[in-house]
């Protein structure tokens, strides 16, 4: 037994060297981000399965997305795809040590992401205004819209639609904040605070985003904690890891767009 213990010690602390090469040949935060994305893909997988399950099991599944909605969703898709390209260019700039262009490409990526959120918000507001709401939520003011009957007859549709797209929109919002922290560091806190306060007062109180804008407030607190408790100069590795997250957000939309929008078209 003593020999076995001794041999074990030799194996553990032998003369092979103190440094052991990483198993995956990548730095730890990159591996950590990949593991997070693998787990997050299962979250979205479960939501997509929930959507598809209801879609298959309901004979009278609504097809509410007309030409205008499909055109809007196509532009949103183009925004995300273009943001992935600018993100890659940002990683290239970071790897060659060009700080100005790294920031510029990250800001371009954020601009595309923000355009996606705004377009998605407009789509949501339009659908809610036409009566598509979750059961138990207050109905839109005014006469019952086109989708009020859909919400009554097939409550699974608004539940899965809003659940899935809200989760994705939250990820895009977190991604924009993440890139803002990497690109601008503490300067971004001031910009985020202004957007949060302006959004809260400018968005009408009967709009869902009047409450949804508090996500920016939570993001502001979290970003401030990170930037003040662990201030650092983000390097090329940090930019690459933030890029992995951003591309994942793009990747998820590549499944939401056809499954949710294109499979529910009302083209006349």
């Amino acid at each position, binding site marked *: 037994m003593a020999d076995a213990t001794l041999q074990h010690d030799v194996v553990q602390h032998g003369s092979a060297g103190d440094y052991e090469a990483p198993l*995956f*040949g990548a730095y730890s935060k990159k591996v950590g981000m990949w593991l997070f994305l693998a787990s997050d893909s299962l979250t979205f*997988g479960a939501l997509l399965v929930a959507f598809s399950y209801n879609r*298959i099991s309901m004979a009278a599944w609504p097809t509410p997305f007309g030409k205008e909605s499909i055109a809007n969703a196509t532009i949103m898709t183009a925004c995300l795809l273009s943001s992935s*390209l600018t993100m890659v260019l940002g990683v290239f700039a970071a790897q060659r040590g060009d700080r100005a262009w790294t920031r510029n490409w990250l800001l371009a990526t954020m601009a595309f992401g923000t355009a996606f959120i705004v377009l998605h918000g407009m789509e949501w507001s339009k659908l809610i205004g036409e009566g598509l709401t979750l059961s138990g939520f207050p109905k839109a003011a005014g006469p019952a819209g086109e989708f009020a009957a859909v919400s009554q007859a097939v409550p699974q549709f608004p539940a899965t639609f809003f659940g899935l797209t809200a989760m994705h929109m939250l990820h895009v919002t977190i991604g924009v904040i993440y890139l803002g922290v990497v690109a601008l560091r503490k300067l971004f806190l001031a910009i985020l605070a202004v957007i949060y306060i302006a959004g809260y007062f400018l968005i009408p109180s009967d709009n869902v985003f009047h409450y949804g804008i508090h996500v920016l407030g939570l993001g502001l607190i979290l970003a401030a904690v990170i930037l003040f408790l662990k201030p650092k100069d983000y390097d090329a590795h940090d930019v690459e890891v933030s*890029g992995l997250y951003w591309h994942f957000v793009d*990747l998820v939309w*590549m499944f939401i767009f056809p499954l949710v929008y294109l499979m529910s078209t009302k*083209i006349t």
Partner: protein
Amino acid sequence: MHDVPHDDSKGQYFWVWGALLVLTAAEVLLAYKQVFQPVRMLEILLILSVIKSALIIGYFMHLKFERALMRWLLVISVTACFIIMYFFFFPDADRILQLGVK
């Protein structure tokens, strides 16, 4: 860090971006024309989505150029989870439809 030598020129990323836009346009065209029945349409759209996601993971997320162990471990584990989800839920969804539950 990467052990696989590869051409990391910017040009290939523009090609990938262009291919993704073209595939998206093809998806939208299929939806507008509605040339296929819903089930066939779903199959084609999913195949196109898998191609698009492979391009994003392989090139934009750089997984194509990572070590083989990392590449296969991630792809196989996540794919296996999705296959398990599929076998658990979709036969049941189809069964409910066959039973005619409204």
